[in-house]
């Protein structure tokens, strides 16, 4: 680990989300399932644990969890109330 800055932001998972869902979600509006805050995904907090954890920048609730291994990916969006996908 190169740095103690464990908190990144949604820009850092732009490529990963593109790989998973096929479009660039950094500017996509997401709605927190905890507090209802609307933010572009780039403005969410991102942590790297055993997998990737995306948290609301306002209430710190978990919005997205991503695990990848052995050619599979698991994407848990249960903490995201809504995600706006632009055409």
């Amino acid at each position: 680990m190169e740095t103690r800055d464990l908190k990144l932001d949604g820009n850092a998972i732009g490529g990963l989300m593109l790989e998973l869902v096929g479009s660039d979600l950094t500017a996509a509006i997401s709605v927190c399932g905890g507090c209802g805050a609307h933010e572009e995904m780039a403005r969410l907090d991102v942590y790297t644990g055993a997998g990737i954890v995306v948290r609301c920048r306002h209430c710190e609730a978990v919005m997205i969890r991503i695990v990848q291994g052995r050619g599979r990916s698991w994407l848990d969006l249960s903490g995201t109330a809504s995600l706006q996908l632009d055409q």
Partner: protein
Amino acid sequence: MTWLTAEIAAVNQETPRVRTLELAARGWPGHRAGQHLDLRLTAEDGYQAQRSYSIASAPGEPLALTVERLDDGEVSPYLVDEAREGDRLEVRGPIGGYFVWDGDEPQPSLLIAGGSGVVPLMAMSRHHAQIESRAPMRLVVSSRTLADVIYREELNRLTAKGDGFEVVHTLTREQPPGWTGYTRRIDPELLSEVAFPAAEAPRVYVCGSTRFVDAAADGLIEAGYEPGWIRTERFGATGS
């Protein structure tokens, strides 16, 4: 999105720790100022390491990355110390629809860079010059020493054009004799001196470590800026 093979077309040492790599990637679709890409290296034994790097060049210019060596990193020591012209690696992108500056809005832009956080902001600065924008743009660069300032001479040239582009330097660790710029880390007082008045509703782009970005954003909000004006990009553990 697929990985593209890219060949290193040119290498330029910017500072002792920082290098710019110009890449030739067949099929690269072009990019917007502020975007990044994912870069992947594959070792002979098949081990792969992947990192994200900001794009330094203006849209339409040859694809260039500027990379800082992190001593215990897995990818950056190779890119900064070992990579040679003709070496091949893989890239995918461009990535990012949020931390981008297209130059199509009239408000002033305030760009705030911590160390190598200047890279995507340099793409915006170059784009500003390239499209002959007259919108005010001010780039605030925090570096440790003068020798650590990335793009120093080009920034001087861009400033000399007199097209509304300005640079403010702060050197936080060591200053040369006669230095008249700032000598400390970004703080609310410094920001209140260099920021455009809140009444002009500037667009703000901040890039650096989490600590740097948080300090800059908090200071600007203290100066009356709306959180929605401030776009940030933090780099850290994934940027090695």
